[in-house]
């Protein structure tokens, strides 16, 4: 019974944070790619993304309520608004900071725009994208605690209820798993980064 009481909020929290994170990736990377080819879109995306970072997280969560109400999906929107920025920004920087000689030779070889993105720009951007996604995952995890205030459920509910009722055990039962998840995220992303990122001969002996 006690374990069920804890498992359900953990499960809710993970679903909340990861749904928002995956939607942010699914939204952020294509937007960053499109921003490569449209100056207007690039300006809009970058301005909005930077703006979102300037607004306090609590205000982002609060502003969602009058717009789309409370519950799971408004909470997802609030997390996405927070997590999108590092993904878009890092992806765009990674994609656009490719050595011009590589782009020139790819064009000369006869690669199409899409092939240049797929075979040249994206591989070059992987480290930056990865760093952005890792940062976004940790942001999503922390915002998912706050969104309990707008009815998302999850570990945040335990934290807020514990705070309100001065129930230290309840508060910690929400806070500790959230910290654990954050540490796990950080470690697992670092591990994936080492495993998945292409090496380019600088890493020395292998």
């Amino acid at each position, binding site marked *: 019974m006690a374990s069920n009481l804890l498992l359900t909020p953990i499960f809710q929290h993970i679903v909340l944070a990861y749904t928002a994170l995956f939607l942010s990736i699914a939204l952020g990377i294509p937007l960053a790619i499109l921003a490569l080819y449209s100056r207007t879109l690039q300006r809009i995306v970058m301005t909005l993304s930077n703006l979102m970072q300037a607004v306090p997280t609590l205000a982002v969560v609060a502003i969602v309520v009058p717009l789309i109400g409370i519950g799971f999906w408004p909470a997802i929107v609030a997390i996405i608004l927070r997590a999108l920025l590092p993904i878009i920004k890092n992806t765009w920087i990674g994609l656009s900071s490719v050595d011009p000689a*590589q782009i020139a*030779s790819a064009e000369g070889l006869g690669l199409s725009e899409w092939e240049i993105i797929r075979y040249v720009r994206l591989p070059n951007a992987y480290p930056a994208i990865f760093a952005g996604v890792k940062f976004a995952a940790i942001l999503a995890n922390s915002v998912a605690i706050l969104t309990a205030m707008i009815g998302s459920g999850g570990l945040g509910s335990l934290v807020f209820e514990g705070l309100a009722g001065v129930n230290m055990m309840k508060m910690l039962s929400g806070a500790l798993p959230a910290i654990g998840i954050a540490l796990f995220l950080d470690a697992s992303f670092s591990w994936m980064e080492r495993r998945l990122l*292409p090496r380019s001969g600088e890493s020395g002996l292998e």
Partner: protein
Amino acid sequence: MRKRFGETVAVDGISLDIRGGELLILIGGSGSGKTTTLRMINRLIDPDEGSIAINGIDTQTIDGIVLRKNIGYVIQQIGLFPHMTIRENIGLLPTIEGWSREEIESRVAALLTLVHLPPDQFMDRYPKELSGGQQQRVGLARALVMNPPLLLMDEPFGALDPLLRRQLQDEFIGIKEDIGKTIVFVTHDINEAFRLGDRIAIMHEGRIVQIGTPRDLILNPADAMVSDLVGSDRLFEHIASLTVSDMMVPASSIISGDLPVQSAIEVMIQSRSTVAVVRERAASFSVLLLSTLLQRRDEVKTVLEATDPPFFLSMDVSLLSALEEMKAASVSLGLVMDDGEPAGLLLPDDLISRLV
């Protein structure tokens, strides 16, 4: 293959024929339009006016991507992809085109061998593990992977140190013979142009000032700029590319063998020549030195008796080898024959004053 160029800001009304199988050099200073011209050939840049045709087909009617896949392209910065192995770099286009793993493997191995990199040592290395010269060879191999009939090279050896550049040029001359492709090669290095080019187009301010073989440019520079660039006033620098016909003195007067000695002397003095060609019979010639004739004017009755046997040379023999032959035979005078008739005389003494 025929190409015509219209106008762009950088290239101002160029018309140019590139012949199948030749290596055409585009040379000029920065801003002369040579790179722009090159990039218009594979439509990285489209001309504002005019057209480019390859084998009679207007390139504007071909999709740029398809066109570029069939034209090799090598740039000075090489632009190998650092996240891919050498195998993946060279095999990228075949991979996109859906070749099988074995086909790609054998093609990559063949190309690496062609550019003098042992495949088993280099296939699975990354570009950063290679020296600049090795990287540029991989760049060339990558450009050749789809076996394009035309190869565009934009200062490929420009970033290498002089010693390595020279070595790669030598290798490239060999590779060029092996692959037998039409090559357009941009450079700003006149020595490179002379070493590699079949023909050289000299560009200045978006125009082609002169186009021709290295010998054309050296011997008949169109203007002072060309003459200065190719060093027409320092012919000795180009001695290796000169032939006998470039440096011979035309045989202006041919004296008949039965001419009286006195008349022969008069003819030679009048024409200010110290040497004359003497026709003994229909197709038999010898040479006559004015000095010999003057010395022996009293002992000989006819010109024939004062002549020396000729040392024959042909027109298109390289000047250096002709001089070596003459030195070996201890003769100071060569009779240059063209199609059985005397065309001119090669006089080493006179040569030196013309070379320097």
